[in-house]
C-alpha cells in the first residue's frame, strides 16, 4: 500500500515506462489496441463521470426542479447557502464527525495493531474478530442495530442501569445523537488496523536488532524506528478515512429516519444534499451543495498531501 501512495505522489510522466521504444509501426498499432481495451472505461469516463460533473456544475447555477427546464440564476444558489441555517448546521455536523471520529479511529487501530504485532499466538483470530465491525459497519442492518442499542430501553441504558445510572434516549437528545454515530465510526477501526498490521510487518527486523545491540530501550525503538517507518501508513489511513467519513450517509439516514434530527444534530452534509435533491427535488441548489463538497474534499486532500512533507517519512 505504500506503493499505492507513492504512485499517487509521483508526478504524472515519471513512472515506470521502460526504456524500450518499439518501432513506430508497433507503437501505433498498440495505441489502437490500448484504446480498444480501454473503451469501456473511456466511455464511462465521458458519459458517467465527466459529463455529469460538468452538468452538475452547470445546474449549480440554475433553478431546476426536474419538471421544468433549468433557469440560469447566476450565483444565487451559492448566496443562498451563506444565509442557509441548515447548510451551516450540516457543515458543523460533518466537520465535528470527521475531526473527532477519524483520529480516534486511527488511534484505536494503531494501538491494537501494536499489541497484536509482536508474534502473538492466535493473531489471525483476533484480527478477524476486530475486523468484523468494519465489514458490517456501513450496512443498514448495523445502523438499525445502533438505533436499538442507544434507544430509551436499549442495551446501553440497560448496562448503565446495572451501575445505577439512568440514561436518556441518546438518539432523541440533540447533544448526544451525533456522538452515537461517532462511536459507530470509531467502532469500525478494524480495517485501518489490518493496514497498520501489514505496515508493521514490513519494518525490517534488522533495524530492531541493530538498535538492541546498541542498547536502545523499547520506548526509544518505538519512537525512532516504528513511528517514523509507519508514518506513510498513517498518512494513507488518514486520507482514506477522511474522504470516507466526509461521505458517510447510511448511518445518519437510518438513525434519524432520513430527517437528520433531532434539531439537525445528525444532518450529515450528504444527507442534506439527499434531502434537497431527492426529497425537495431542488436539483439546482443540491448541485451547488455537491460541488461545494467536492471542492472541500479536494482542498482537504491537497492540504493533507502538502502537510505530509513535514511529517511523513519516506525512507528512500
Amino acid at each position, binding site marked *: *500500500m505504500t506503493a*499505492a501512495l507513492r*504512485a499517487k505522489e509521483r508526478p504524472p*510522466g515519471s513512472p*515506470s*515506462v521502460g526504456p524500450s521504444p518499439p518501432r513506430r509501426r508497433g507503437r501505433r498499432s*498498440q*495505441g489502437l*489496441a*490500448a484504446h480498444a*481495451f*480501454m473503451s*469501456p*472505461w473511456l466511455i464511462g*469516463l465521458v458519459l*458517467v*463521470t465527466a459529463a*455529469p460533473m460538468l452538468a*452538475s456544475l452547470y*445546474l449549480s447555477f440554475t433553478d431546476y426542479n*426536474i419538471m421544468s427546464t433549468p433557469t440560469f440564476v447566476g450565483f444565487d444558489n451559492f448566496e443562498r447557502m451563506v444565509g442557509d441555517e441548515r447548510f451551516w448546521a450540516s457543515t458543523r455536523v460533518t466537520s465535528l464527525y470527521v475531526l473527532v471520529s477519524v483520529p480516534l479511529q486511527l488511534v484505536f487501530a494503531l494501538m491494537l495493531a501494536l*499489541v497484536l504485532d509482536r508474534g502473538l*499466538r*492466535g493473531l489471525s483470530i*483476533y*484480527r478477524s*474478530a476486530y*475486523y*468484523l465491525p468494519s*465489514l*458490517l459497519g*456501513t*450496512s*443498514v*442492518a*448495523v445502523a*438499525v*442495530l445502533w438505533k*436499538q442499542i442507544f*434507544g430509551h430501553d436499549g*442495551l446501553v441504558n440497560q448496562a448503565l442501569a446495572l451501575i445505577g445510572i439512568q440514561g436518556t434516549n441518546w438518539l432523541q437528545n440533540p447533544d448526544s445523537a451525533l456522538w452515537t454515530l461517532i462511536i459507530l465510526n470509531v*467502532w469500525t477501526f478494524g*480495517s485501518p488496523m*489490518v*493496514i497498520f*498490521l*501489514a505496515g508493521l510487518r514490513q519494518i525490517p527486523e534488522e533495524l530492531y536488532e541493530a538498535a*538492541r545491540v546498541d542498547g536502545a530501550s523499547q520506548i526509544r525503538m518505538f519512537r525512532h524506528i516504528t513511528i517514523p517507518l509507519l508514518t506513510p501508513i498513517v498518512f494513507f489511513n488518514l486520507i482514506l478515512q477522511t474522504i*470516507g467519513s466526509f*461521505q458517510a*450517509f*447510511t448511518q445518519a439516514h437510518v438513525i434519524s*429516519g432520513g430527517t437528520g434530527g433531532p434539531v439537525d444534530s445528525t444532518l450529515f452534509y*450528504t444527507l442534506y444534499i439527499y434531502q434537497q*435533491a431527492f426529497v425537495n427535488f431542488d*436539483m439546482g441548489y443540491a*448541485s451547488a451543495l455537491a460541488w461545494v*463538497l*467536492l471542492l472541500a*474534499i479536494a482542498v482537504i486532500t491537497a492540504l493533507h498531501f502538502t502537510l505530509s512533507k513535514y511529517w511523513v517519512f519516506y525512507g528512500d
Partner: protein
Amino acid sequence: MSTSTLDSPPVVDGPTRPRGPSRSMRRAKVRGAILRHGGLILFGLFMLYPLIWMAVSAFKPSHLVLTDPSIIPTELTLENFVNGWVVGGFPFWVFFGNSLVIAISAILGNLISCSLTAYALARLEFRARNVYFAIVLVTVMLPMHAVVIPQYIVFSNLGLVNTFIPLILPKFLATDAFFIFLMVQFIRGIPRQLDEAASIDGAGPFRVFWSIILPLMKPALITTAIFTFIWTWNDFFGQLIYLTDSSVFTVPIALNALVDSESNQGTGTLMAMSVLSLIPLLLFFAFAQKHLIRGIATTGLK
C-alpha cells in the same frame, strides 16, 4: 519483553542454581501473555457484544428483547422472522433475489471492464498513458455526490428509475476506478518476459491478455470480486435513490422500509431481519477471509 533479557546479562553464580532466573523469566513471560490475551479477549467481547446481542435478540420473544439484556436466552422463537418477512407486500426472498442480481452483475461488470482497462494501462505502449493513469487516480477520490444528480436526471428521463440498470451499467463502464488501480499494480508485478515470449510467438495483445495475464492476475480478480460484493450488498445511497417501488427493493432498502412499516413489531423483528441481511456478508467472511484480509492489507479497501 525480549529486551529485558538482553539488558540484564545472564547471571551464572554457581552450578547450584542455574535454572533460577530462567524459570522466573519464563513465569513473567507467561504472566505477560495471559494478561495480553485476557485483555484482548475482553476487549474483543466488548467490541462484538452488540453483534452478539443482535443475533440473540433475533430469536427472543418480543416481550423479552428489551427487558432481558442477557445473551443467554431463556426462550427461543422464530416469530420475529415471521413478523418481518413481508415488507410492502413482498416477501424478503424477493429482496434477496434483487440484491443478488445487482451484486452478481456488478461483480461481472467490474471484472470485465476493469481488467481490460488495467491491462492496457499496465502493459501496452501508447501516448498519454500516464495521463490516463493519473485520471484513474483522481477519479478514485471523486465523491459520487458530484455526479449523482445529473445521472439521476438522465436515468429518470430514460424511464430507468425502478430498474437495476442505473446501478449495474456504470460497473460495466469501469467507474469503480479503484479496482483499475489495484489491477494495474498487480499486473506490473507479473514478469514481462512472459508476455514478450508470447508476442514473439505471434500472439496479439488480446491473446496475451486472455491466455497469459488474466490467469496470472487471479488474486487481484478475487479481491475485486469480494469487495464489489461487499460494497454492493452494503450500498444504500444509490439503491435508495433509484429503487422506490417495493417490487424492486433490495435487502438494505427493504430493511430501511421495515423500520417505518406496519409489520415492524419492535426490536425483535428488526434484529431478526438485520441478522438475515448480514448472512451473505458473514458467509463471505467465513469462506474468503484470507483473501479479504490480504486484500485490505495490500490495497486499503474497507
